[in-house]
């Protein structure tokens, strides 16, 4: 294990890249949960949908068209889901929600197969982000640096919006106590709708961003779901801090686990999750104490 500093820098960047991708996914899921107490297991399917939209749009108008329009398209699906299902499920218990969204996973998996086929798709990294950049003494793929930067930018933007703006205050009030928020004259229903669609858009964005990195397959949503859930449960549901810390923990444990203890790599993260739940049954930074 005679690795130089560059090797570890590279691995740290890999970990960060994975963390940021997971952050994009988990933040939407966790805020939807924190605000609406809604468990959306189909969040991973929205991510897959984002990747497929991006692949189709990229074929027509290049990468950036997919990058910008796929989240919009997924948000559109979010609108349909919200008005068709979610709105009516809001008052149901977590079990009913788990089941409906479990049904959605099934349905959306087969719908993507019907529309896009079983064959894996791929899209190319845009010319602008192709190649590598010298960074911290290592050569690192530009596109991966872009993902890291995008994740950090969205984190910063969300932190700002939540802490400093009117809508952020409304969301915080809603997470804290939605009945109270309603009393304060906040249109909770509209707030939920907006947050849900925004969460969907972020999932779509994550899919669009992941597509050039990975392959676009019907089961990619199922594959990413478990890591995303682990992230938000370790971090604690409903909080930005939880989502970002959970993502970082997952990214680093997974990456360095693969390097240092490859035999244990896949069990490690589950063991960590179990440990966290034993010590803090509601995760590290839950929105409510």
């Amino acid at each position, binding site marked *: 294990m005679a690795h130089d500093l560059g090797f570890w820098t590279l691995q740290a960047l890999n970990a960060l890249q994975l963390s940021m991708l997971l952050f994009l996914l988990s933040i939407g899921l966790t805020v939807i949960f924190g605000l609406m107490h809604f468990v959306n297991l189909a969040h991973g399917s929205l991510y897959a949908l984002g990747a497929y939209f991006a692949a189709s749009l990229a074929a027509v108008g290049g990468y950036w068209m997919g990058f910008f329009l796929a989240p919009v398209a997924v948000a559109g699906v979010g609108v349909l889901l919200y008005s068709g299902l979610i709105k009516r499920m809001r008052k149901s218990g977590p079990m009913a929600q788990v089941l409906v969204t479990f049904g959605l996973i099934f349905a959306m998996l087969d719908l993507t197969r019907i529309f896009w086929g079983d064959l894996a798709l791929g899209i190319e990294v845009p010319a602008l982000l192709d190649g590598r950049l010298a960074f911290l003494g290592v050569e690192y793929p530009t596109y991966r640096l872009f993902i890291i930067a995008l994740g950090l930018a969205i984190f910063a933007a969300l932190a700002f919006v939540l802490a400093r703006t009117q809508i952020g205050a409304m969301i915080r009030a809603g997470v804290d106590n939605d009945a109270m928020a309603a009393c304060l004259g906040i249109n909770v229903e509209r707030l939920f709708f907006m947050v849900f669609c925004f969460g969907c858009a972020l999932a779509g964005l994550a899919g669009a961003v992941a597509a050039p990195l*990975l392959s676009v397959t019907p089961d990619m949503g199922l594959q*990413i779901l478990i890591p995303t859930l682990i992230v938000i449960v370790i971090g604690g549901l409903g909080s930005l801090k939880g989502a970002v810390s959970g993502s970082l923990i997952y990214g680093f444990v*997974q990456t360095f686990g693969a390097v240092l203890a490859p035999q244990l790599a896949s069990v490690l993260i589950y063991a960590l999750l179990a440990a966290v739940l034993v010590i803090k049954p509601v995760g590290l930074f839950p929105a409510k104490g």
Partner: protein
Amino acid sequence: MKRATLAALGLATSFAMPAAAEDIKVGLLLPFSGVYAALGNEIEAGFNLALEQFGDETDATFEIIREDTEVKPPVALGKAKKLILQDDVDVIAGIVSSGVLGAVRDMVHGAGVPLIVANAGNDEATGADCSPFITRMSFSNSQVNRPMGTWMHEQGIGKVYTLAPDYAAGHQMIDAFTASFTAAGGEVVGQEFTPFQKTQDFGPYLAQAKASGADAVYVFYAGGEAISFVKQYDSFGLKAELPLYGSGFLTSPLYVNAEGPAAEGVITALHYVPTIDSTANAVFADAFTAANGRVPSEFAVQGYDAARALIEATKTGASDRASLANALRNVKFEGPRGTLSIDPATNNVIQPIYVYETVAGEDTLTQKVLAQLPAEADPVNGCEMAPVSN
């Protein structure tokens, strides 16, 4: 115990009623959903094409009953039982995953139903677990990789780092390569097996490969993992300093377009390449492309040759389970892959292996055959087969 089980289940060979002469019931057992659905469809397309092209050569007619394995061994076993006991098929063809093959092996063997394997490559199926009823028209994991070890060393590559998914096929492919590569005098400087179907980010492993001091990297990945791997390998800029070699599934025509330019220059070995220069291949590839709008992959040719083998077998007059099993073991024909024959010791197909480089074609990627390595039979690996008696 096993025999007793099957006898009691009412599956003994004597129980199988010979079907009406020359009307042959074929169970097509393939994944039409799940992760390998694309392979199932590809194999079926090839299978149907062969029936169309060569069906007239035999007097037999075929009734196809397709069943979806969902890539789940228990489901597949249930479907195999249904085909054998309820539909009373004469022969089964298909099977993509080795897990599914392992699951149905005892069933078809005990029931005495011939099985033409159209993909699953685990070495045991034509080794320790071989059966006179199981004939493989696809490949074995070792067969595809073994010649590459010698060939790569001949090209002057001394040190190699290997990567593959952590499951039986991954180990068999890499082990076969490692054995021949080290026997030729090469050195494997590092080896890693990544969690199967759970690895999406290969970055951590690529950094290790880079740091290993190898001259080249040899890998086996397939499907979605192959796409991610090839693209990520390229994005780290490793292709220039550390050439990428591998088992040919890595750049299969089925996936290479999703990999894009990242796949250019990757050199791999496989039992079929769509650009093989022969009449048989031209006939096949043109018809397949016309019917499906894409060039055929190795999976398509496996389905094609499986049907072809069945047709050849019926030409001998075989029509029931036992006679078909015997006839299948003796088929020999000239196909898109070259001359195919069945190794009498193991029932595995004997075929040449092609080393090819993925290169940019006119508008899509294409394959440039670098070498045709001679057909070799696998070692017997503990296979013992009693002949099938009628």
